[in-house]
Structure formats: C-alpha cells, structure tokens
C-alpha cells in the first residue's frame, strides 16, 4: 500500500508571468491554507471523500477564488454556482447547478449523492433541496465581491465572457464572445 496523496487547484487560465503580487500572494496563501487543511484531515484519519469536501469548502470560503464567496457574475449580474463530488470506490456522485444563496455548494452536492436517488439537481429545485436539508444559506449579496462587479463591467464593455484570471481586453486569451460553439 502507498501513502495518502492530495492535490487541489484554484483555477487556471491566462495567468501572465507579471501577474501582480497583490493578486498572486493572497491566492498562494489561500492554497497553502487549504492544503494544510487537507493534510491535517488525512492525518486525523478522515476518508478521501471527507477530505475533498472539506478542502473544497475551504476553497469556496476564500473570496479570491471563483467559487462560493467570490463567484463571478452572469450577464444578468446574478450568481449561478455549481459543484460536484464523486466517490471512486462506489462511483456514487452528486452535482448541483444554479445556486445563488448556498454558502458551500460542494456540501449540497454531497447531500444530493447521499440523500437522493439522483445525481444532479439544478436551480430552484437545488435551492429548495438546500433549505429542506438545513444547509447554510445567505443573501446573494454576501457572495458577491466588489472585484467581481468590476470584472463584469469590463467583460460587458468588450462583450465577452471571461475565464478565471483573464485580464481585460478584446485580444486577451480566454475571451470567447465570438465563438459559435459551446
């Protein structure tokens, strides 16, 4: 048998080499914190499913990443969070989409896996499921950051969708507003 292992990400994209320190350093600190949470969970004997849920909850709680608090905004200035979780041993899985008040979507995805015969709940039904199970919710405004309001304004200015870490501008990588696919 081998030892445990864990990996995590905070999103990828067009991260330029001159990415400003004031943006980079808080994300690196958040990554380190979330990695430490996962390592501690393994050392305390938690199973992998608990570890990945715990770590993603921590990542969702970090406003510097695009999930949970800090989620980016749709064209209608709304939030639509989504998440999924899967257990490799049993292939059980759960997923949610279209959430706008749930603090930790990943935990709701796990509830879909464990408390329903289904794999995927979305939008109003997913929000109702969260309330039925006493999942922590907040007003949507608590999940929106000033930075993401600004990012939406920039994206609308160029009439483009914008991936994680894409810098504003019509020629930047990650803009796909003219794509006819997807």
């Amino acid at each position: 048998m081998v030892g445990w292992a864990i990996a995590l990400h905070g999103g990828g994209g067009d991260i330029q080499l001159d990415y400003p320190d004031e943006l980079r350093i808080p994300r690196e600190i958040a990554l380190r914190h979330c990695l430490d949470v996962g390592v501690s969970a393994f050392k305390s004997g938690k199973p992998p499913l608990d570890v990945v849920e715990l770590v993603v909850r921590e990542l969702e709680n970090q406003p510097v990443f695009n999930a949970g608090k800090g989620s980016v905004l749709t064209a209608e200035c709304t939030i639509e969070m989504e998440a999924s979780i899967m257990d490799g041993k049993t292939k059980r899985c759960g997923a949610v989409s279209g959430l706008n008040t749930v603090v930790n979507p990943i935990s709701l995805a796990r509830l879909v896996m464990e408390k329903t015969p289904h794999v995927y709940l979305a939008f109003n039904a997913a929000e109702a499921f969260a309330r039925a199970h006493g999942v922590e919710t907040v007003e949507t405004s608590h999940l929106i950051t000033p930075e993401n309001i600004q990012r939406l304004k920039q994206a609308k200015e160029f009439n483009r969708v914008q991936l994680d870490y894409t810098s504003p501008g019509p020629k930047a990588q990650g803009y796909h507003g003219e794509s006819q696919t997807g």
Partner: protein
Amino acid sequence: TVGCVAVDSAGNLASATSTGGYVNKMAGRIGDSPIIGAGTYANHLCAVSATGQGEDIIRGTVARDVAALMEYKGLSLTEAAAYVIDQSVPKGSCGFIAVSANGEVTMPFNTNGMFRACATEDGYTEIGIW
C-alpha cells in the same frame, strides 16, 4: 473554479469541484464542473478535477478520458493525463489535477498557468502557478 482530489493509503479515491462559471456568461449556462466525466470524475483507478474552458472540457470528456486511458489502455496516470491535456482539448483551454490509486499525483495544464498545490504522505509538498 476550485477542486480537490485525494487518495488514502488503501487506494480509495475521491474528487470534488466547485465554480461560479464564467464572468458575463448567459444565465442558465452549465459548465463542466458539475458534469460527471467532464470536469469531475473518480473510480477505482484515479480521481480528476478540471478547470478551464468548460465547453471544451465537456466535449473532451476530460476527466473520464484520463480514467478510460488507464482502464483500457493500461497507461499510468501521468501518461494518461499527458495524452488528454495534449490531445483531448484545445491548447490554452484546460488544466486538471489528478491522483491515482497508487499515490501518483499529476497537475497538467495547457493554459498559461493554474493555481495548484499537492502533498503526499512522504512529506512532498508543491505549490505552483506557472
């Protein structure tokens, strides 16, 4: 997008992914993160969580492709991941993290960068962007 994959010393695997999607996306658009087999997958061989251009990740069935290459072609996790990041998705569109049942870890991406970190029981730790 954020994600985490993990394997314990008995080879049990799990994967989780969460996201807010794209800035300025159409309301109602679903990305790859909640799609099992696209942005998230785990079986008895590996666990995968992806980030990037969701539509490309869905078309490429990225997470499931890694597992399938291991299952049907006998590739190692690193080999399967390298194939998928090179062949299954357009350059500049995707990155993912993955672990295998025997403790392999890989974090490939074909974008400029990906915020990522990993640790193993033997004390190895890595945090990276580019």
